């Protein structure tokens, strides 16, 4: 019996697990102020800050990172299990659970970053771009008459692009499911076909 496999799901599920592993070390988004004086490494599974050589993390963000990590790992595993048995009775549940996870993570991550930059702008008064470089002029009351300009460089890392690919593959797996599942049904039904014996005249 030929077994149908959702190869988009296999690739997507495996890539989601790779993304989780990579994101522990390579940030999705990074902010650098000055020459590494202040650095923020942000990804949904690992967020850390570095201020003049001292590294620290924020407990609330750490909790969110753990949440994202569990959801992405479970989503990746669910996608892999679904992909090898796309016509199993539980396949639909696994697919529904897993295919949206990377996409939602990307959307929430970008929305969170955008919100964070707006909050910084409203509190401190200067704008941090999501991508690119800018020079931030510190408020005069902070610098006692001296003009202090801090260069800030931000950007998305290749791990973020990898996640976009993983999200795309998972959605492709969902779309491809319609083709894989009926094919499996036909394959299963084949032994049920009854052939009539040759008629002798």
């Amino acid at each position, binding site marked *: 019996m030929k077994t149908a496999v959702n190869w988009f799901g296999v690739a997507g599920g495996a890539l989601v697990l790779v993304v989780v592993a990579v994101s522990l070390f390579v940030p999705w988004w990074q902010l650098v*102020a*000055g*020459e590494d*004086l202040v650095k923020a490494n942000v990804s949904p599974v690992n967020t850390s*800050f570095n*201020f*003049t*050589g*001292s590294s*620290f*993390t*924020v*407990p*609330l963000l*750490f*909790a*969110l990172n*753990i*949440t994202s990590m*569990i*959801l992405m790992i*479970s989503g990746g595993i*669910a996608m892999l299990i679904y992909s090898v048995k796309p016509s199993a*009775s*539980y396949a639909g*549940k*696994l697919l529904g*659970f897993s295919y949206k996870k990377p996409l939602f993570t990307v959307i929430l991550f970008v929305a969170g970053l955008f919100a964070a930059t707006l909050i910084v702008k409203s509190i401190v008064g200067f704008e941090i771009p999501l991508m690119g470089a800018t*020079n931030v002029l510190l408020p005069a009351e902070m610098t006692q*008459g*001296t*003009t*202090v*300009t*801090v*260069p800030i460089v931000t950007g998305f890392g290749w791990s973020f692009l990898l996640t976009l690919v993983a999200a795309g593959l998972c959605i492709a797996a969902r779309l491809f499911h319609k083709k894989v599942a009926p094919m499996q049904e036909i394959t299963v039904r084949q032994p049920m076909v009854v052939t009539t014996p040759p008629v002798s005249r």
Partner: protein
Amino acid sequence: MQTVGLVLILINILAIAGPAAAVAAVYYNDPVEMIIPSKVEEAITSAIQTDENIEMPQYIGSTYDTTSRTVTATFSFKNPFEFDLTVNTVSADVECVTHSFSLGHAQLSNPVTIDAGTTATITVVFAWTQTAENHFLAEHSNEENSSINLVNLGLDVSGIEVETPEKISLTVPLTQ
């Protein structure tokens, strides 16, 4: 099939509620610590709030070379912070104190890295112009020393650009 559905729902609930509940339990007595950990305050305090404020470079002395028309001035620059600094550039316009006459431009010869809490010597080279030489010959010919100001002082320290309205006054010896 229902079991799989339940397990998946359970994973969602535990993944969302578990870590948040754990952090809330750990920081139950001090909820602010969940967002602004004390380590952040410590890092900022230790890095920025030093007993001494950052000071402008202090003039040590100067040498001059008449053939290349340059004055090489040395300054001491203290890094009061608990992290290393790199002085990438120092630039200033040089003017005669008495006549506010522009004499030329001074800049750092080479970038200098200053370790945390230490003082380093930085070398600034001032190339004077022919106009500056003519000014000295016309206005300061009988003087042994001349007072000059470094104005429009700009520094690039570890990527952070600082422009200060402060002046640095120097007295440099004059040669005939």
